[in-house]
């Protein structure tokens, strides 16, 4: 890949010098070839990864006739989007998804941030282990008892049931992201604040949290996305009024004849917010997705 340039002794014969020049040229050609190959491979990767998303977006603007026709061309229409909002009540489902994602994220932060701080600073290791175990337990294991419990309490189909269930994913995740971060903060700043008379809570709120803003951003964004995308918990626990977007689109499909255009428009509406967040917050999403894999 990299060519090494050795100083050429002037006493070397012309032949050797020419040989060195030729080998450098070969290396340059090889590098150019490698660069082209890499560009082609990356293009292939991008086409494969983006094709389904682009196809969904294109289909969302097609009439039913264009979707089922064997020809490739189509005349763009907004009809599918109008239908999704007017006939299928998607505004309500969007609001539900937004509400559940925001509140489950908020409450997970309220529980998770002090918890993570305590694990990092006061060494409640067992709590960390228990929260990590939550990643291993299959989600349905929680779902069966919740379903029974929430039915008894008349909470099935309520926002409370949805928010609590989504927190089971986001709270452990937030702790998972925050513990290494709090551990990495220099303890001296907090100690000097304590000496100056700040309380434990004051130190946490006024010193540790402001320093942790980047990690909190990561935790918040990922927690929101996880909740927004969550399907299984919402499928069981949501009701007609509280249905979130993934469940709404799934029900949409199970109608007798599939309205593909409307379905794709709904898919665009659901996915677009997440894609926009990802594009603008790329750095945080990457660190959220790779959290724990590098250091842990």
């Amino acid at each position: 890949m990299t060519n090494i340039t050795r100083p050429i002794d002037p006493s070397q014969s012309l032949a050797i010098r020419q040989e060195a020049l030729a080998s450098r040229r070969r290396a340059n050609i090889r590098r150019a070839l490698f660069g082209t190959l890499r560009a082609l491979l990356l293009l292939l990767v991008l086409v494969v990864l983006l094709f389904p998303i682009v196809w969904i977006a294109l289909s969302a603007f097609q009439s039913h006739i264009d979707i089922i026709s064997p020809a490739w061309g189509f005349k763009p229409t907004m009809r599918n989007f109008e239908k999704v909002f007017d006939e299928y009540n998607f505004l309500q489902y969007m609001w539900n998804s937004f509400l559940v994602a925001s509140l489950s994220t908020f409450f997970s932060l309220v529980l998770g941030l002090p918890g993570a701080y305590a694990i990092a600073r006061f060494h409640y290791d067992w709590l960390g282990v228990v929260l990590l175990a939550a990643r291993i337990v299959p989600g349905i294991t929680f779902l069966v008892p919740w379903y029974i419990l929430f039915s008894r309490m008349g909470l099935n189909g309520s926002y409370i049931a949805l928010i609590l269930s989504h927190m089971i994913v986001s709270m452990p995740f937030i702790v998972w992201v925050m513990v290494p971060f709090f551990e990495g903060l220099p303890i001296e700043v907090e100690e000097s604040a304590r000496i100056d008379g700040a309380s434990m809570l004051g130190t946490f709120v006024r010193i540790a949290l402001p320093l942790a803003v980047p990690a909190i951003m990561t935790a918040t964004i990922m927690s929101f996305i996880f909740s927004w995308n969550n399907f299984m918990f919402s499928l069981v626990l949501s009701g007609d009024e509280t249905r979130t977007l993934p469940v709404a689109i799934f029900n949409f499909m199970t109608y007798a004849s599939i309205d593909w255009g409307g379905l794709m428009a709904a898919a665009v509406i659901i996915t677009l917010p997440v894609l926009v967040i990802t594009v603008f917050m790329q750095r945080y999403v990457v660190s959220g997705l790779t959290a724990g894999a590098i250091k842990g």
Partner: protein
Amino acid sequence: MSTLQATEPRINRPSFKRRLHRLGFIMPAVIFVVVMMAFPVVYNGWLSLHEWTGSARRAPVYVGFENYTELFTESDRFFPAVQRTFLFSTVVVVVELVLGIGIALLLRDAFPGHTIIKTLILLPMVATPVAVSMGWLLMLEPTIGVFNKILRDLGLPIQPFLGSPDQALWVLMAVDIWQWTPMMAMITLAGLLSLPEDPYEAALVDGASALQSFIHITLPLLIPTLLTAVLLRSIEALKTFDIIYTMTRGGPGFSTETLNTLSYMQAFEYFRLGEASALLVVFFAIVLGVSVIFIQARRTISARQAL
């Protein structure tokens, strides 16, 4: 977990008041964990020894280990589901790992457009799985789907895809690979960028080729990161639900039924809560077993490398 270990020994015991303050930090989280996590797991274990349809009028009936013996001796859907779960997870994790390493190597050196490509690559794994599944259903549709359209235009035989018991599971694997290869690529890339420079310089001086330095330097140094990535992905792959349930519901027949979709059916479509709970206990044991194997492997390898 090394990150959770004490960084320094505690010398003096904190006072009672201080300990009370400290407990204040974790109590909310602990209460949540006990009520929302520990209770369900214990209740699930208890329920696995009972037979119940969830009816409020008829209480659960104690049946001992009957649900388990039924699972292992009578059920004709349990072992095939176990087998499929392992086949699915092994294939997707291995393919995602290999492709992920490849993509990470392509992205290691910066070039114009580097950041944009890294962002675009993230999209499959953050896009709402259910929404994307709907897109795949349209693309895979035998008569109007784009894949058969392409095959037809090329003069190749059209395929049933999800309609065929022989193809459906493999198609779902392809969707999972599409969705999660970026995750492997991102983790591998982060691992690659954190590697030290020195061994490469030494190898270059010794005249090692790019392939040699990849096999003898990069790969061994990367193994702890790769093992963690494989662990995280395996746990998720064993539990794959969204794409399978929304695209095939375990069908055609039972040809794509995995432990997770089978548990879901037992619990929320047939309301056999006892059997579902027994299944979930076994399912949990399997995921736990796989996790322990990987964690142990990682620890062994890290210890060996530290020597």
